[in-house]
């Protein structure tokens, strides 16, 4: 049976009756916060319904979500940025030069004009100019400490591995440290080799080294995968706790 919008609308209106009754019960029992929990459980189930398949409920809730996000974006843009950094300086501290942002913003709206849409690029190139200009400092402060940290001694002593304090302690060679440092360097250089694009990987040695780099990279990706899983599942467990304990009251709450 093909559901038309009209039938979906009728069904939705009918569903609203028990839903609002439930909301009222929650409100009576738990107050304002209870109503939040009720709404939260409802929308969570609606979002999860997409796991079964695309359906009208998800579509409806998705649009509400999108609308709320858009509205919230406007509220934040005003209250966190424009009101304190633009409106107040102009109208309260009379720094009227800030008004000159207005022409730039107006230019951006020319994107909707068919003929003069290129004018909208003026504010955009200014913004991307700022982004491009910061790259010099950004590159240096992000990557140079890492270069320094990549110098690895193949003859490390035990005391420097565990205790960076300088002292004339034993200068015993740490075999495991040496092996680890060697593996570190091999990984670093082989992955770098894999990412050379302008040289054909001609000799067998280079091709092999790049291949080793790709394998080591895969180990790294696997490690990220493993460690990220924990967060993702913890969030799901928390959502299930919300649904089962806080919303449905099926067990004892922790706090």
């Amino acid at each position, binding site marked *: 049976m093909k559901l038309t919008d009209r039938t979906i609308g009728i069904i939705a209106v009918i569903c609203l009756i028990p839903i609002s009754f439930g909301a009222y019960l929650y409100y009576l029992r738990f107050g304002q916060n209870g109503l939040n929990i009720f709404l939260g459980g409802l929308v969570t189930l609606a979002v999860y319904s997409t796991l079964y398949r695309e359906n009208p409920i998800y579509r409806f809730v998705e649009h509400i979500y999108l609308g709320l996000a858009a509205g919230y974006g406007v509220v934040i843009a005003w209250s966190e940025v424009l009101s304190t950094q633009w409106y107040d300086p102009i109208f309260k501290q009379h720094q009227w030069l800030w008004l000159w942002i207005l022409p730039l913003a107006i230019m951006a709206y020319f994107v909707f004009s068919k003929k003069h*849409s290129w004018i909208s690029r003026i504010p955009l190139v200014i913004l991307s100019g700022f982004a491009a200009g910061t790259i010099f400092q950004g590159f240096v402060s992000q990557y140079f400490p890492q270069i320094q940290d990549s110098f690895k*001694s*193949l003859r490390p002593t035990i005391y420097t591995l565990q205790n960076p304090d300088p002292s004339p302690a034993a200068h015993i060679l740490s075999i495991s440290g040496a092996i680890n440092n060697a593996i570190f360097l091999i990984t670093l250089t082989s992955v770098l080799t894999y990412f*050379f*694009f302008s040289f054909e990987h001609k000799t067998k040695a280079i091709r092999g080294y790049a291949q080793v780099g790709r394998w080591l990279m895969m180990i790294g990706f696997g490690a990220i995968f493993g460690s990220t899983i924990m967060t993702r599942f913890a969030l799901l467990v928390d959502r299930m706790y919300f649904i089962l304990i806080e919303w449905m009251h099926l067990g004892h709450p922790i706090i």
Partner: protein
Amino acid sequence: MQHACDNWFVAFFEGALIMLIMVRIIKSMRGSIPFIRRIPGLNAIDEAIGRATEMGKPILMIPGILGLDIVSLQALNVFTHVTRTAARFATPIRMCVCDATLYTISQEVIQDAYQAEGKPELYDPDSVRFLSDQQFAFAASVAGLIQREQVAATFFLGSFFAESLIFAEVANSVGAIQVAGTVMTTQTPFFIAACDYVIIGDEFYAASAYLSKEPVATGSLVGQDYAKLLLTFFIVLGSIIYTVTGYAGGPHVPLIHTLFADGGWTALLHSIRHLF
């Protein structure tokens, strides 16, 4: 390092890297087009477009979820290529954008691509959409779009975060062929698990240079290779000096260690003075 004068050595080093890149760009602009290795993910792009054409279903493109920055602009370069190929076969496209400033540029780029193929009438202004600038609202709505329109091919190129797997798995569930590429190393494993072809790290820049065949982009790519070689050289050199001096954090610090830290320039001058 807030300013260049915190360590002039590092500033000069960066200058050297920039010079390497610039020299190759200029050389390439003067006509000596350099060689670039073809990366495997590229074949997949045309394959995916072909598949969508066969099925008559749309192609979805997402230039990351960050705003107007270097990565998303690069993604748009690739998408220009995709759009032009799609325009040739009159395959419908969808593009979802997460940022208002990027949205304006994307709209123009897509329109230009249709114009360049001589088919401006195929351009549908609603094919480029701004959905939301909030991460998961955007994800929810892209997921909905993928399922409703049953897209046949997806291209996720740009900066992605936690939502990467939502896109990739939903697209997989409708049987789309997927090409993904991101500079975010934390999301690459999820794309590897869920997508058909993944462009890893640096290949992202290479892909765009290879597709556009612009002398500037290809020259720059070669320059980046030389810069990378210089970095590798320094890392190996530093490690050799550490090994020879036996240093690993002890009191006798080799010069190369201090060179890359704040005050490195002064250390260099000091040791030169010490020599004479």
